[in-house]
């Protein structure tokens, strides 16, 4: 995984509450067996007409929002299905971060494991970012993971929370699996001490 440190990018707003992962990537696209090519299907049902032509009013389709790297979504972004295809699709569509007031737990976990940064801000900052994105599509913000800050165009900095371990992994571009693999002996000791509860291969 590429390290995530600091980046600046244009923001685009999708100020809809409770955007579920079925909207981010509809289930019919989940018949793939790899992670690639999902960007084109990101928000497919909101983005395209039945004949496949883009809906001009959808923010992500507007010429002025092309190249946006940071999505500002409504409250409770990423609820619903656990599909990790959601962050894969968002990253495939060019996003490096999503900003919201809060995220659904599974989406947040999935995003952190892929280097898509879920950035939680207070409601006032959230409203401000949505207004900025809608008023001036060239609005750019800077996200800095080390200092856990978002810098707004007026220079104001707001901090966002992230657990220390996820932050460490993202900053250094290491995945979390490596750490757990290193605990092999401890896992073995746990298994020794805790007798098998079920066996799927018995019976």
């Amino acid at each position, binding site marked *: 995984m590429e390290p995530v440190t600091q980046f600046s990018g244009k923001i685009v707003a999708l100020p809809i*509450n*409770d955007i579920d992962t*079925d909207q981010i990537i509809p289930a019919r696209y989940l*018949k793939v067996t790899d992670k690639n090519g999902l960007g084109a299907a990101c928000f497919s049902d909101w983005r395209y007409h039945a004949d496949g032509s883009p809906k001009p009013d959808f923010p992500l389709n507007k010429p002025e929002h092309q190249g946006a790297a940071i999505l500002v979504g409504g409250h409770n972004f990423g609820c619903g299905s656990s599909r990790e295809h959601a962050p894969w699709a968002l990253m495939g569509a060019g996003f490096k971060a999503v900003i919201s007031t809060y995220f659904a737990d599974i989406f947040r*976990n*999935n995003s952190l494991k892929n280097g898509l940064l879920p950035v939680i801000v207070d409601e006032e900052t959230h409203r401000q970012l949505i207004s900025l994105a809608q008023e001036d599509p060239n609005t750019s913000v800077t996200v800095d993971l080390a200092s856990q800050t978002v810098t707004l165009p007026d220079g104001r900095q707001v901090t966002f929370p992230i657990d*220390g371990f996820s932050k460490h992994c993202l900053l250094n571009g290491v995945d979390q*699996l490596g750490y*757990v693999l290193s605990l092999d002996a401890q896992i073995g000791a746990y298994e020794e001490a805790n007798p098998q509860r079920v066996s*799927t291969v018995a019976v």
Partner: protein
Amino acid sequence: MTPSSPETLFEKVWNEHLVRPQTDDLPAVLYIDLHLVHEVTSPQAFTQLRERGLKVRRPDRTLATMDHSTPTTPRGPDGVIPVVDQMAAAQLDVMRKNCADFGIRLFDLGTRNQGIVHVIGPEQGLTQPGMTIVCGDSHTSTHGAFGALAFGIGTSEVAMVLATQCLLQNKPKTMAVRVNGKLDPGVTAKDIILGIIAKIGVGGGTGYVFEYMGDAIRGLSMEGRMTICNMSIEGGARAGMIAPDETTFDYVFGKPHAPAGVAWDEAVTHWRTLPTDDGAAFDAEVTLEAHELVPMITYGTNPGMGMPITARVPDPDRTRDVSEKLALDKALTYMGLQPGEQLLGKPVDVVFIGSCTNSRIGDLREAAKIMRGRTVADGLRVMVVPGSQQVKAQAEAEGLDRVFREAGAEWREAGCSMCIAMNGDQLEPGQYAVSTSNRNFEGRQGKGGRTFLASPLTAAATAITGVITDPRQVVGEREYA
């Protein structure tokens, strides 16, 4: 060891599975007792294992099935369920190869134990109190009905569990969800959970594990409890749990993978220690009174947009804030509904009875009670999809398939079917469905399809009349008491 302070059910199960406790710098390392795998969220995880040269640490704690992308259409003359979608067929082949290469037991399409992942775990007796259970599927919360800590994970986490049998987790908060009293006839577990979600909203449980308690929960069958825990995620909670009791033990006893003999007695002795101690603290609490609940139905595009079936569609102009108004406006536009409209009497195109929420034998018996001797309304499509091949066989042994068929409903093979609409079972754009599934998201049951979530009783009553129907109006109390 005697705990120094009273603990919740969740805390007991959590603590028993700590390979390493959480610290300021590191999440807890949680041991996973059972890992359920299906074809849609696992391929990329196996790819990761291959790329890193890793094995599956505990194939004996891993079980795979096929359910999401599988067709539920009839078997051919050869007894095989044909898979016409080439992408789905390829995905199923990848599942077969992955299970063969990594030594994982697979319940292949159409074989006698295959079914929806959250139906087969309990029916095999693999789901037991006090366990940790994960699956790359958000409805893994279902298994919490047994007093297990069970939750959905993403594909990166699937890879982690395959390789290490562990997960990294930050300890969630706990919420007591209390349902006091007794349900009126015609009101079911599905109505309880739709009522809870309507009260707290789809994000209300974010960051929490629910523990459902109270007399109304105690009074439910295991299947009703599974329906409730299943939809914990629709309230934002990754997991929902119910303390194990005699109802739980009776259900598990004698199942293929349940402990037997002395091992059974030892297990039950342990399971009896799991319920939340008196005086244990929760981070939050919500309470409902069962007698205030009536059959529920959703009107919008998330499971929190639900109301009593006798109520009227809410008015966006009367919402609390701008973002809520926007969300409701958007939902009603998608659903083609007007503020103040009554849903009772509204014609629908499809009734779907199935999904990991409501496809167990008890759900089918409830639906059959209403449909027996009656006929599906003209022009209505009614699909009844058993949750597993075992459920299908049981239903057929009881003659339920004949009840449904004679009424004019489709009796299909087991799978997720129209709950996820990635397997050929889907709504046409604009169609309305009353569905016993768990999600009414835009397009969830087919692009442009419009879903009303409800109980199996409400779905069956609607199947007979062709319009949204309060099940209490269709049958006398004797039929569902």
